[in-house]
């Protein structure tokens, strides 16, 4: 790799990292309030992508949409995928986790329920949408918008990074500045005491899933804009984002953002440096390395702590 090629890999890395960060937040939020790794979160991502496919196919855009139409399509995709992701996560909590919580089930039962729900959703999507790869209709022509030191930045890259940054800023505000956020942090730090203060724990948990699901669903749509959809599409980005959450310090929101960005950039650079086949090895190598030296992740496993 030549020095002048750095940006050619950095910019796609940032785009990928922004997506991982948004998904990783979904894992970390739920871990914060429930101390549970929601392994079905990768399927929330997949549902987001397929819901956008349904919506956009229904709108049936021409293969060469006008600018106005493109904006409309992107808005529709974001709205539908976010809503579908939120609804899926909400239902998942109600069906797969809440009954176990009621019965004080052991940790392992939650994990098994999570994996079961994950496979259920995956195969349901395979049944409903077919087991072949699909692609979203053309939403916009992916033109270059500007260049940074000779490296072109595309509309897609700009859209993904902007959407991700907006969601992260919004989430940061929600967690640190709103009453719901105060409730989420309180449940994460000490659920029982939060209850004594008047926090409805079930409601907070449910809303946490909705927030994480909304972000995960949108990430699915954005991912689908540049790669193919398939019923197993959630697995690799999901597990990478999970690794990102752990790298940053699981339960720590800013840690998840940082971990996602780091793994996206590492993944992007690993193919020119080590070869394309090492692409997916790199993220997990980073995970193992970080955990060897800092078992609680880079920013530490501070539950309920956003900073």
């Amino acid at each position: 790799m030549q020095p002048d090629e750095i940006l050619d890999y950095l910019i796609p890395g940032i785009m990928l990292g922004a997506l991982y960060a948004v998904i990783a937040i979904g894992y970390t939020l739920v871990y914060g309030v429930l101390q549970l790794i929601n392994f079905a979160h990768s399927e929330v991502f997949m549902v987001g992508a397929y819901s956008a496919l349904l919506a956009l196919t229904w709108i049936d855009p021409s293969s060469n949409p006008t600018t106005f139409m493109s904006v409309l399509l992107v808005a529709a995709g974001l709205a539908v995928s976010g809503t579908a992701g939120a609804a899926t996560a909400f239902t998942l909590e109600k069906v797969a986790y809440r009954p176990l919580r009621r019965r004080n089930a052991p940790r392992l039962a939650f994990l098994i329920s999570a994996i079961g729900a994950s496979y259920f959703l995956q195969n349901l999507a395979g049944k409903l949408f077919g087991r072949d790869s699909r692609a979203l209709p053309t939403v916009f022509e992916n033109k270059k918008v500007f260049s940074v030191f000779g490296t072109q930045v595309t509309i897609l890259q700009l859209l993904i990074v902007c959407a991700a940054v907006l969601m992260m800023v919004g989430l940061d505000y929600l967690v640190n500045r709103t009453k719901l956020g105060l409730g989420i942090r309180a449940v994460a730090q000490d659920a029982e005491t939060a209850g004594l203060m008047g926090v409805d724990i079930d409601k907070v948990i449910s809303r946490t899933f909705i927030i994480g699901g909304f972000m995960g669903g949108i990430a699915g749509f954005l991912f689908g804009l540049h790669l193919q959809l398939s019923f197993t599409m959630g697995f690799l980005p999901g597990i990478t984002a999970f690794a990102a959450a752990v790298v940053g310090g699981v339960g720590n929101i800013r840690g998840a953002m940082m971990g996602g960005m780091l793994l996206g950039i590492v993944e992007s650079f690993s193919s020119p440096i080590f070869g394309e086949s090492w692409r997916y090895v790199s993220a997990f190598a980073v995970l193992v390395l970080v955990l060897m030296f800092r078992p609680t992740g880079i920013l530490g496993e501070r539950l309920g702590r956003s900073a």
Partner: protein
Amino acid sequence: MSAAESMGADAVGLTKPAATATTPRKKMLELDDLHVFYGAIQALKGVHIEVDEGEIVALLGANGAGKTTTLRTISGLLTPREGEVRWRGERIDGVPAHHVVGLGIGHSPEGRRVFPAMTVTENLNMGAFRFKSVPRAELDRVFELFPRLAERRTQLAGTLSGGEQQMLAIGRALMGQPKLLLLDEPSMGLAPLIVAQIFDIIREINEQGTTVLLVEQNAAQALRLAHRGYALETGSVVLSGPADQLLSDPKVREAYLGEGA
């Protein structure tokens, strides 16, 4: 027969009225024949306790006697298998904890349980979670009662000393503007000087109109503060009566004040 007489008549056989008996007694909280279990283990075996408006009532007993279990049952963290919890005459057992606080029952739990990664102010805001917005006047009152908290309002609660955390736990419970304040071992692990300070403040809170149910292992100090007291032993009330009578009772002196018979 008034409730005060029936109360005094059991166990220690005292008939002297409680400190509040000059005004007519108004029953606030009644625990009636409470049986509470942790799985198969029975923690409370038919507990009867009453708290009147305006009182400080001390709940004494050794580790594992059921003091904390009693408070947790009142707060709705535990549901009794038998018996009733009545708040101003209405049953509240089975009401979930996040609704109990809305009735006017504030709980400062055992071990303080402040939110460690929140600032002092955020912890106090948590205490007022049941309100739409944080009541300004209450915040001022808490900072007046605990000037130390005002000095440290932007500090993370996890970095406070034990005494400061205890003050924060009490202040946080006060932020919900409780009619009844449940205090679980506020003296635990604190230096005698700090304990004296905190007990003075509990008296002040009570004088300002908040009823207090105080769980303590530190029986002598608790009884000097309280109007009435109950002693629990392995899940049952074994003694009860006005605090000054309990203080001079030889059985109490032997069992709870560490004096030989």
